[in-house]
Each structure stands twice: as C-alpha cells, then as structure tokens.
C-alpha cells in the first residue's frame, strides 16, 4: 500500500492506468483487500466519480476500507448515541486535525454547534485547545434550530476558503427523503468549493453522504485489564474510540478501536477486543451495554429507508 504514505493522492484517470498484472508480480505484499481496492478505484475512475483528493488517516486497514483515505471536498456523517457527544466531538476534532494539516494555515473552520441549552452542552474552547485545535479559527454559527443549521449547510459549503464545515444536527427528525435531498445538494456544493463537511449527531436513517461513521467511546485498556487491575492514578488519559465505518462510497465497512495521539496528530488502531474481554457482570438494565455488534446495528436496520421510499426519492430527484 505505497499510495497511502504519500500525502493526498490525486486520483485522476491517468493514475488509474497501472495494471493489476504488475501488482500481481509481487503478490506477497499486496493483500487481497488491497487488490480489490485497486479494482474498485479503477471502476470508479471509469465512472468518473472519483476524481477527488483523498486524505489518508494513517491507519492502513481504515484507509483501505475508505478506498485510499477520507475524501476531501465531500460531506461525511458521524453519528453517536445520545450521551456520547464527547467521543463524537473528539473524533471529529481528530479528523479535523488531519484535514487542517493539509490545508491553508489561516482558513477558518465553520462549526454550527448544537444549542447550548441542549443535553450535549456547548463547545469548550480550552478543551479544544488542549486537543491542538486553535479555537480562534472556529467561526461559530449559533442557531438553536437544527433545521436552520442544516439549511445553512449548503450555503456554507459553497464558500471557498474554508478549512472545513461541521454541522451538528442534535435531534432533528426528518424523513429519509429529506436526508437524501440534503446529502445530494450538500455533496454538490462541497465538490464545487472543495470544502470538506462533517455532520455530527444522533444516528438517523440518512444515506447519500460520502461516508457514514458510528462513534462510541472506548477504554484504551482492554476491558479485561480494566476489570482485573486498577489503573494507576497518574497514568495518562488516552483518547480512544470505538469507530465503525458503516458505509463509504467506493469503500467497505470497517470497525475497530482507534486511539489518537493529539500531540503527534496520529491515529492508531488498537488490538481488537475479543469475546473473552467482555465484562462478565454487564448490567442487564442497560439497553445497549456494549456498543457495537448487537444493539445499534439492529436499530439502524429498522430505520433504513425501504426500497419503495428510495425509489420515490430517485423519481423526485429526477423530476
């Protein structure tokens, strides 16, 4: 995966030409996934929908799942369950730091946070500064209504000279049609200006965004370690999240624990928790005791738009 190391990879048609047979000569190095990535990107380039800059996140398996990295100039959706706002914001800041490392020094970031009176609280500048994000670069768009914030998203995304746009929709309830239309318009606006957009909020039945993530907090130490021995009092607090890539355009789903070193601005994958690590005495009263496999996945399948609804949307868009 040599293409991952070299900064942003402009993937144009000419970059797509290298044939797979050459790759096949040293099959040992190339994983099966890598080969499929190449094929997928070739096909995508022939479609003409992937002439986009990609930002490798520095985690090999994740970058391959994202078909080379996070697509810049697109809109991504990051979801987290209510109560996990800290983790969600933290992961958004981690992505933002990766994006900022590649963009103009002085470009501001537009952040439309959820209403301060809501349950997720307001952005706190000192905490952002501790994660290496200069709060002075943030342009806060303060509007209590998530609908208004989402309506302004397209206008903001169309503006050139921004580093990134982050919009929090805290508890908006909209039809899948609405999300489909919003995603389409936002994607077109972002492609025109090259500004990357992130949407943060609760899990919703949305589709059409470039990638869809589910973020949950995670312990840096594996659960069995936490259970068995007490963490030393002055041990550093590692930032760690359970990151699930549900969908990525041109990529494939992916899930793991990611830890982020804010000083070095480096993401790294933690070893996967095994079934033996599951806490033995998980309280039965919690609806979703462990984020991941069972609960949210089932929930989302219920929320997914039906075939009929999707067809209706396509008809409306065409109309």
């Amino acid at each position, binding site marked *: 995966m040599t293409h991952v190391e070299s900064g942003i990879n402009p993937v144009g048609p000419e970059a797509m030409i290298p044939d797979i047979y050459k790759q096949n000569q040293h099959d040992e190095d190339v994983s099966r996934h890598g080969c499929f990535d190449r094929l997928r990107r070739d096909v995508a380039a022939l479609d003409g929908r992937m002439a986009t800059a990609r930002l490798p996140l520095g985690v090999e398996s994740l970058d391959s799942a994202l078909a080379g990295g996070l697509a810049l100039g697109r809109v991504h959706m990051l979801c987290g369950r209510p*109560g*996990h*706002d*800290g983790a969600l*914001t*933290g*992961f958004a*800041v981690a992505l933002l730091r990766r994006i900022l490392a590649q963009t*103009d020094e002085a*470009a*501001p970031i*537009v952040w439309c946070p959820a209403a301060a*009176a809501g*349950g*997720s*609280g*307001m*952005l*706190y*500048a*000192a*905490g*952002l*500064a501790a*994660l290496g994000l*200069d*709060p*002075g*670069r*943030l*342009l*806060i*768009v*303060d*509007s209590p209504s998530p609908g*208004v914030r989402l309506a*302004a998203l397209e*206008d*903001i995304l169309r*503006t*050139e*000279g*921004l580093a990134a746009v982050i919009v929090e929709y805290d508890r908006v309830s909209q039809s899948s049609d609405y999300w489909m239309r919003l995603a389409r318009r936002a994607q077109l606006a972002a492609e025109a200006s090259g500004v990357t957009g992130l949407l943060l909020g609760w899990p919703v039945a949305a589709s059409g965004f470039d990638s869809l993530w589910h973020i949950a*907090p*995670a*312990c840096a130490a594996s*659960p069995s370690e*936490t259970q068995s021995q007490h*963490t030393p*009092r002055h041990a550093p*607090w590692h*930032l*760690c*999240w*359970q990151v699930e890539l549900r969908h990525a355009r041109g990529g494939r789903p992916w899930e793991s624990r990611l830890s982020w070193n804010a000083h070095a601005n480096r993401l790294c994958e933690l070893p996967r928790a095994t079934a033996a690590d599951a*806490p033995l005495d998980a309280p039965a*009263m*919690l609806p979703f005791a*462990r*984020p991941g496999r069972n609960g949210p996945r089932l929930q989302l399948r219920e929320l997914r738009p039906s075939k009929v609804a999707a067809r209706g949307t396509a008809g409306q868009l065409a109309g």
Partner: protein
Amino acid sequence: MQRVIIHAWFPHLAAERVRRAARHAASDMVADLPSGAPLVLTSACHGADLVDSVCRLAARHGLRPGMRLADARALRPDLVSRDSDMAADAADLLHLARWARRYCPLTAPAPATTDGTGAAVAHDGNGLWLDIAGAAHLKGGIRALLAEMARSLRAAGLTVRLAVAPTCGAAWALARYAPAAQRHACARMESPGPRQLAGLLAGLPLAALRLDGTVCTAMAAAGLRRVGDILGMPRAPLASRFGSVVTAQLDAALGHVNESFTPIAPPRPLLSLRNFAEPVLAPEDIRAVIEQLADETAAILQQTGLATRRLQLGWQRVDGAVLARDLHLSRPSRDAAGFRRLLADAGESISPEFGLERMWMEAHDCSPQAPVTPQFNAGISASESRASLIDRLVARLGHGAVLHMKARDCWQPEAAQYMAYPDMEKSGFTDAMNAAPHCLTAAPRPIRLLAHPHRLAVVALLPDHPPAQFVWQRQTHRIVRASGPERIAPQWWTAAGGTRTRDYFRLQDEQGACFWVYREGLPERGEDPGWFLHGFFA
C-alpha cells in the same frame, strides 16, 4: 430681505482641544498636562516661538496670542506650552460648521487668517459664520436660537462668544470686542441699518474692523484708536494715508458694501428613497424596489468614497406604520451585487398588508474606503468569500448568530470563555491563551461544557473520594477510572452569596465515556455536598 449673520468666536478653541485630548488619552498624557497650569500653543516664527493660542486660565493671567513664548514664561513661569496644529484647528472648525447646520443651511468656518509667514495674526481667532435669515423662527426667534447654541457649545466644553448683526463685518467685530450687552443688541432691533450699526461699533477699537496690526499701529500713531474716530472723517484722505482697506472694511461692516461668505457644501445623505404614487403590494414589485435601492445606495457610496457596515432598509405602510430592518456587514462594503444578495430574501420578510407607501435604504456606520479597481479575470479572494459568508449567515440567521470564541482570564470554567462578534483580522483566543495560560491549560478541560450543570445521583465514599457510580439520563455509569480532584473556589469578591467551592473529577465509565463531574460543597466544612455533571471529555 435683510440678512442676519451670527458670528461665533472660539477664543480658546485650540487649547481646549489639547486639554480635551489629554483628558481622553492615557494617564501619562494627563500627568504632564496639569490642569492648574496655564496652557499656551506656540509655533516658530522668524526664529522665535510665538504664542498662537492660549487657554482661558492663561488669558486671565495676561497671556495673549502674539506674544513671544519667552515673554509669556517671564509672566507665568509655570506655564505649559505645546506646538500648535493649524490643520487640527481647521478640522475642528469644519466639524463645528457641519454641526451648526442644524440651525440654518448656510454655515462656514472662519479660520484664523495668517500673515505672509504662516503665523496666525495675533488678534485673530477661530470663528464660525451662520446666516440665519429666515431660519431663526424654527428655534423660536433669534434670541432663543442664540441661547440654545451657546448652551450646547458650552456643554461641549467650548468657550464661545456669539454676536448677531446684519453684516459679516459687524458680527465679527461685536463677537470679539463688544461687551456682552451689545453683542445681541441687533436681535432686539427691528431691521438695524447703517446708522444703528455705527452706533454699536463706535466704541470698539479699530482692530475690530479686521485691520492688519501694522495699519492699526499707524492709525494709533495718528491718534485714531476707536471706530468712532474715523466714522465722521472724510474718506479720501483716510484711504490715501492708511490704504483703501480701511474704508473697504468700514463699508463692509456698516453694510454699504455687501459681503458674503462661502457656505460649506451640505453633506449628501446616504439615503435613497422611493415614494410610491400608489400603494405597492406585489412581492415582485417590492423585490424590484429593493434591488433599485441597493444599486442606488451602492452608487452613492461609490461617489462619496465611503463604505458602510450597516444598511437599514425601511418601509412605511399605508396605515402609517414605519418598520425597518438592519443588515450588518462583517466589513465595510459598497458592493451593489453584495447588497442585492444580502437583501435577496428581505422582500419576503416584508408584509405589506394594505400596501407600502414608501421605502428607503440608508447606510450607517460609514467609513472612507479607497476605491478599488476590479482586476480582469480576478476571482474572489478567499478572505472576501469568507467575509461575504459571514454577511450572508448574519443576514439569514440574525445579528449575533456568527461568533468567535474568546478566552477570559478566569478560573471559573463557565466564565473562562465568551462569544464575541467575529474579527477576522486577529485571533483573540490565541492571544488570551498566551496571556493567561494557567487557568486555560493547567488542568484538563472538557471539549463540551454543559451550560447548566446537571445534578447527579452519585455513590461516592466520604469525605473526598471520586464517585464509584452515578446515574445520568436514567443510565447507571460505573466508574472504572477517575482523576482529581481539582479544587476551584468561587470568586468571593464577585460571586453571589452561598456559592460553594467545587472539586472537579475526571471520570471514565466502563464504556469508556469520560465525564467532568464536580462536587459542590466541602464535607469538612460541614456542607452537604451535591454532585453535578459539567462536561464531556473526548
């Protein structure tokens, strides 16, 4: 119609400006301008420092404009001297002339006349002309107008002497040389003619005829000191001996010769207005009018070289209701296309009800801006595009919707941050971070802070252990890791009574979510502690 000229004389205009500036400036300026010492303003002339202007105190001590600074120092060793600034004097006078347009449309500054070398003529001073003929009744007559003018000028901290006369020369003379009783004498007379003016001026010194110092000296040598001395004299010998200027000024003062002044040009209002013959109702008509107004306002700004930071769109309905909408701009602008864009949805927000009678657009908070020639093929720069984004968002979401985070040097977490109107030039937060590093970076801070701390039901060991578990949003969070406490005491000098000390803990539950929780009240003081959730870590 007879003219009515008011001359306002500001004998200490320059010195009062220096004192005013010193009062408003930093304290070091005040330190070297003691209010008890006489102040004189000087300029160099023929190798000597001449006094141009004196303050009221200095005038009372016998210091006069035209003296040498050395002589003045001999009289008052404690005096303070400053360089005079003619340009600032002229600017002040122009400002006053504009201000005086509230009384009449014809006003003009009468600056200190200078002799050949550029030094102010000694007896001269700064004055203001007003031609109030036909305008005095608006203020209830000449005397009421004079009284109001004097009152407001004195309230502004200016020493002023006002005189009224039918001619410029007489008003000038009366303002400077006449006693207070005579200065307003013409206001009491019914159309004063040359004879009445001669009676008023007769007792004044010859310098009151705006004569040069050398002419005055020559006439004094011939025994002529008062205006009355030359009133009855034959004119031809007077002119041949002292110059025709003497008779010319006398004729001007008495009204035999018409003398006038050039009034300042009225400032053009930054307003475009549409009065409609019939009430306008249709939304597309309103939109078209708004676009015309935007173009017109931009054109006016272009002509005057100004740029505005606030546009006000006003409308009046047929029922008489006057409504307005403000548009705040992030930077001064006079871009017609930008105005149109910002006002694109303003038409929808106007509810005409039974129709609009008039609409107008006014530019406020204007500042001069050099005209910029648009370059060929030049795209919009990134900073322009950002600024226009702010404008669009503010126009859409309201003033105060787009903000910057600013830091404050304060240990109280909720007070350490505030929001301010964005200033794209400088990042205030970074400066504040560098200035006040302790309270912002010393201890870990959450990335999200609850505006109102949420009370928790907590299981914790007394007296000062972190919680073992707490219930929040009907979920039990079992704590696997904690650090703290960080003790933050309230600001006792500002805090309300009963505000208690807080101990902050950083907690991690078994799912990995990190919380910022505090205990309010110290058990060792016998206070009943309460637990609150205050924020979330990443």
